[in-house]
């Protein structure tokens, strides 16, 4: 798969509810070359009069032949997300370009422990990494810190509850926490990362994804805790990415 990337026709095969406002979409993309966890795709929609627009979405799962999985958050007044989550029909086409991104990726051949810090929909590429680890039978220790507003907004809730050996998951709630949780709702703090992340001496690779403000806060915290900035990889979504 060399040469410049082109737009490929992708057809919707399945749509699943992740939360009341988020859907996982499974597309069939003939000729899909495969991808790495952390990469994303660009999607292009064209209306009947020729008007078109593009968005980018992270791949939510490792490659499965010609199947590509995305999780899309429905944004109020959005141009594309209401269409993808509610209107696009099974068998209908969109155009996809990818996979793209070579920096914010995790390969099962990497040997360092991994810290994943997700803010809202920033969980998507990190879940691809969790799933890639599982698919590869990897024993690399993973810690996931997942910040959400309320428990109802957790993506992949059942799968994360089931867990996996060597994967530790901590949920941080910013608005409403379940009764049994002692931590009061609030934004991620130094204490949270220090308690639930890896110590800097373990030299983990850290992946942080979510809205810009969240990513900057967490990256600053990690540096303050002694992590080498070269081992911190970030992916910022726009303001409604969280």
């Amino acid at each position, binding site marked *: 798969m060399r040469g410049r990337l082109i737009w490929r026709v992708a057809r919707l095969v399945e749509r699943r509810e992740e939360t009341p406002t988020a859907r996982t979409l499974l597309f069939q993309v003939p000729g899909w070359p495969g991808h790495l966890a952390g990469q994303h795709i660009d999607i292009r929609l064209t209306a009947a009069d020729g008007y078109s627009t593009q968005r980018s979405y992270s791949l939510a799962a490792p490659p499965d032949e010609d199947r590509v999985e995305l999780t899309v958050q429905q944004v109020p007044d959005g141009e594309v997300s209401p269409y993808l989550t509610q209107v696009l029909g099974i068998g209908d086409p969109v155009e996809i370009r990818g996979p793209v991104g070579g920096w914010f990726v995790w390969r099962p051949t990497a040997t360092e422990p991994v810290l994943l810090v997700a803010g809202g*929909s920033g969980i998507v590429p990190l879940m691809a990494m969790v799933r890639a680890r599982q698919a590869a039978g990897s024993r690399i220790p993973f810690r996931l810190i997942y910040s959400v507003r309320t428990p109802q907004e957790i993506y992949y809730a059942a799968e994360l509850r089931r867990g996996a050996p060597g994967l530790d998951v901590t949920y941080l709630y910013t608005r409403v926490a379940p009764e049994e949780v002692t931590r009061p709702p609030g934004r991620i703090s130094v204490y949270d990362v220090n308690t639930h992340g890896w110590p800097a001496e373990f030299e983990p690779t850290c992946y942080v994804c979510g809205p810009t403000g969240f990513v900057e806060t967490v990256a600053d915290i990690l540096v303050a805790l002694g992590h080498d900035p070269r081992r911190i990889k970030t992916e910022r979504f726009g303001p409604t990415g969280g």
Partner: protein
Amino acid sequence: MTEGYAGLGGYDGYGYDGYEDGNALAGPLREIFTVDVTAATCRCVSCGRTGEVATLRVYRHAPGLVARCPGCDAVVLRLTRAPHAAWLDLKGTTALRIPMSEDAVSV
């Protein structure tokens, strides 16, 4: 007739006064280069900061992308996409170091 580039994570608003990071350049640059360029390192001609293209601050001005140095805000890279051509301006950086061999992403 594209509206141009749009942000990662499915950011679905129409323009906002902020920036994303250079991961958003991956697709547009992959239309031009046959390897991923976001993992390449670049050096800002203004302040000398060196970092991956993925760490640049990307401002969307569809149909042009402007990538600025996170240290000093100087323009490092610009990419404009018209129907029959792309313009890539790299005069804000001295050179790109593009990882090859086993470090490179092969898809």
